[in-house]
């Protein structure tokens, strides 16, 4: 590695400013902007994923030659991420979608009707998905 002798850790400084900026943009989008809730959620989740990438590649040296080009670290993080996505999306899919939480309908037979019903009744619970 050539940058061991460098006095100024350029990569870290760039990464730091990027993550501060992304955090501010996310906070602004959520708290100040006029975007719809759906777009805010999509937008800030995308920003979070980019920021996680900055941490991994700029701070944690996921792919440096000493760790065999990061073959195993990268695999661990990538598959961890895939599992996390499956866990969260799968849980929401099986536990929340198509059902309202107020137990006043026939449940699974009327999924679509329930969905419409619950969207009108408690939009707060479903807009998070």
């Amino acid at each position, binding site marked *: 590695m050539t940058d061991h002798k460098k006095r100024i850790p350029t990569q*870290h400084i760039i990464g730091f400013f990027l993550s*501060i900026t992304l955090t501010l943009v996310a906070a602004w989008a959520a708290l100040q902007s006029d975007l719809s809730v759906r777009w805010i959620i999509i937008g*800030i*989740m995308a920003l979070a994923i980019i920021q996680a990438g900055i*941490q991994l590649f700029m701070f*944690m040296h996921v792919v440096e030659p000493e*760790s065999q080009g990061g073959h*195993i670290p990268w695999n661990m993080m990538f598959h961890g991420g895939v599992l996390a996505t499956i*866990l969260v999306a799968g849980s929401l899919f099986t536990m929340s979608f198509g059902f309202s939480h107020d137990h006043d309908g026939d449940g699974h037979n009327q999924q679509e009707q329930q969905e419409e019903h619950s969207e009108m009744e408690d939009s707060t619970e479903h807009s998070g998905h």
Partner: protein
Amino acid sequence: MSSHELKTGPLEYRTEEGRLTILGFWIFLGAEIVLFATLFATYAVLFGRTADAPSPGELFEAKTLMIMTFMLLTSSFTCGIAIHEMRRGSVKGLRNWMIVTLLLGLGFLGFEIYEFIHYAHEGATLQSSAYWSSFFTLAGTHGLHVTLGIGWVTLLLIQLTQRGLTPKTSRKFFVIGLYWHFLDVVWIFIFTSVYLIGMVV
């Protein structure tokens, strides 16, 4: 463990033991992702089920949240600088930047404790509703990891003054560095999907 020690490259990668330990730590981090994913999934499923307790939108404060987030982001940065200094062979740089990291971590923890006490006073505790149970479990598990990290860094700093920079101590610092950055990654997702979404919805 290793019969041959490399003469070049970062100290922490020079022995086979060092390389394998770092590799093992990446596997541990992979498992940590899954651990937090289960807590995030629970939180997502229980979102909105606050029963009679206050809603997150009423309790979350943007100011405290931003201070905590910037503290942890900065601590991740200073931790990166510490490892950078370590690779330049500077014990002093490593120690000083690690102490800064430690203080920022303590500050973060202080704010989190203050926050939790505040919520409890407002009637949102682990027992008050399904939503708040999942919230405190998720944020609390992260806080516990930070606490653990602070203890770990403290012990390593003591070891550094006693033993100096060897392949062993630098491997240990490199590993705690990975751990600390990882905590920041988890916090980014808590910041976004718990706090920001909690305030928007």
